[in-house]
């Protein structure tokens, strides 16, 4: 077999500092048949846990055609319960099978006393939570033999136990675990509205070198109690206020691989690729100004 050094089976294709799209089952056939011009793809790790079958076959092929990121939603690294070793083993198998350039999870908890809620549940920003999450991240990184990125969460409440700002919390986890960060700009936008997060302070508190990926998505408004909250539903185009925060993020963190996430009411792939082109244009504009 012949090939270039870049095609080494051990070296995944690096993710460019451009905008890619989330791979969803609705677009599998189109991706396999047409190889549309996406800069890179991100897949939800748990959707490709199986031993085989059509979905696994699709991702195996696409992993050869596009730079790939695997984004997990089920490990619940902040859970006080023992780490789910079987789930972690399946993550490792997926990393071995698809050889992604980036692997990420969330700064959240998902299960307690053996019951999983299958949602990204928020942590109180405390010293204990930093210690616990950092220890879990170190364990996962040791087990996978690589760094992972941790994503900031969207939240619907602020907690009485919290003692640190969100930025202080995440920066401390980075410092104690050596992980990177996946900055979800929509989540920051949602939190600013829902719990009064100071986004400029968040960006300032995050170590620049740690931010290796950005997520962009849409949200919706819903009446909750006496308040109107922003719900992080990934069901619409990236709204203006998120684009504005993205520009701020680019000024602080520079050009970073950016993902268009869309999980509900998923539109035609062309719509996602259009959002990615918009992100690329904004990134060029902001980073040219900054240079």
């Amino acid at each position, binding site marked *: 077999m012949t090939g270039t050094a870049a095609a080494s089976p051990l070296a995944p294709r690096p993710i460019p500092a451009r905008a890619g799209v989330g791979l969803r089952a609705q677009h599998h056939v189109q991706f396999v048949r047409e190889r549309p011009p996406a800069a890179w793809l991100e897949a939800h790790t*748990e959707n490709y*846990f*199986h*031993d*085989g*079958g*059509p*979905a696994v*076959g699709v991702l195996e092929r696409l992993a050869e055609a596009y730079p790939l990121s695997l984004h997990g*939603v*089920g*490990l*619940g690294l902040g*859970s*006080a319960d*023992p*780490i*789910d070793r079987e*789930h972690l083993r*399946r993550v490792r198998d997926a990393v071995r099978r698809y050889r992604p350039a980036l692997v990420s999870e969330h700064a959240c*908890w*998902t*299960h*307690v*006393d*053996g*019951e*999983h*809620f*299958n*949602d990204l*549940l*928020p*942590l*109180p920003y*405390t010293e*204990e*939570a930093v*210690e*616990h999450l950092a*220890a*879990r991240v*170190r*364990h996962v990184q040791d087990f996978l033999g690589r760094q992972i990125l941790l994503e900031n969460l969207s939240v*619907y*409440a*602020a*907690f*009485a*136990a*919290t003692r640190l700002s969100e930025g202080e919390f995440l920066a401390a986890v980075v410092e104690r675990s050596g992980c990177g960060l996946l900055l979800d700009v929509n989540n920051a936008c949602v939190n600013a509205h829902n719990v009064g997060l100071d986004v400029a302070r968040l960006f300032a508190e995050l170590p620049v070198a740690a931010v290796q990926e950005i997520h962009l998505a849409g949200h919706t408004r*819903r009446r*909750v*109690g*006496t*308040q109107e*909250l922003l*719900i992080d539903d990934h069901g619409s185009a990236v709204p203006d206020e998120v684009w504005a925060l993205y520009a701020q993020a680019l000024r602080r963190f520079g050009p970073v691989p950016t993902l268009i996430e869309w999980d509900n009411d998923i539109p035609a792939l062309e719509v996602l690729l259009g959002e990615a082109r918009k992100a690329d244009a904004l990134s060029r504009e902001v980073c040219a100004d900054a240079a």
Partner: protein
Amino acid sequence: MPPDRPDAPLLAWQRCFAAVLHEPGRGDLALASSLVATQGADAHARIGVYRNNSLQARRAALALAYPVLQRRVGDDYFRQLTHEYRLTHPSRSGDLHDGGGAFPAWLQERLAGTDYAWLAELARLEWAVEEAGAAAARAPVSLAALAAIPAAALDDTSLQLQPSLRLVSSPFPVWSVWQANQGEGPAPAIDGGGPEHCACVCTADRVAVYRLAAAEYAVLEALSRGATFAAALEAARSEAATLARVLDWAFAEGLVVAVNPSVRA
């Protein structure tokens, strides 16, 4: 090693949060208020967003695995069923796919004795399709592998079939219902119909769902357990012609991954 029991406050906090997720009643108002910085009814409503997300995630995963069932019973009844199921079958996995396996058995109990008992059978078929689509596919062997076996040794020959093969035998016409609901548009009514026997298998890039005659199903079922040709015929109380038909079909569809000659040879 990471600490498996970190500082107790975090565990207690998560238990408290879980209690509020479980109890949408008024009793948890105080609990919610102890967690959330915003006091009063809003604290409860805010954690309700997570409760709703968790419920929706579970329902969406079941809807993905049981699309025909959802279509037949309608969204409202499906929502009711999944809600009841969730109460007795809390999720035990961070992979939502794992939570759907017990649904057919639960439905069978839930609908026993009603006119809708057949829905549990339909669910059984849909889960078999789901499992087949998640299993590894192995390279099939051709009929030539069988031709290499001397005629005298055929009785003691057995097969290895695709690991994705799932067999469903039902007193209801589940295959017909499943098949009728694969396309877009309104599903045609299924008039009467008796038992149906199905084989689901993932070969190459798709899951195929076959309907088999009772005798052929019995032979295939025996072969799938590793029975020799002679034992399969005996177990199925079938004729050699039935075995021949099953073999022709199984090789043609790529179901056979190995031919095991007699162990006595």
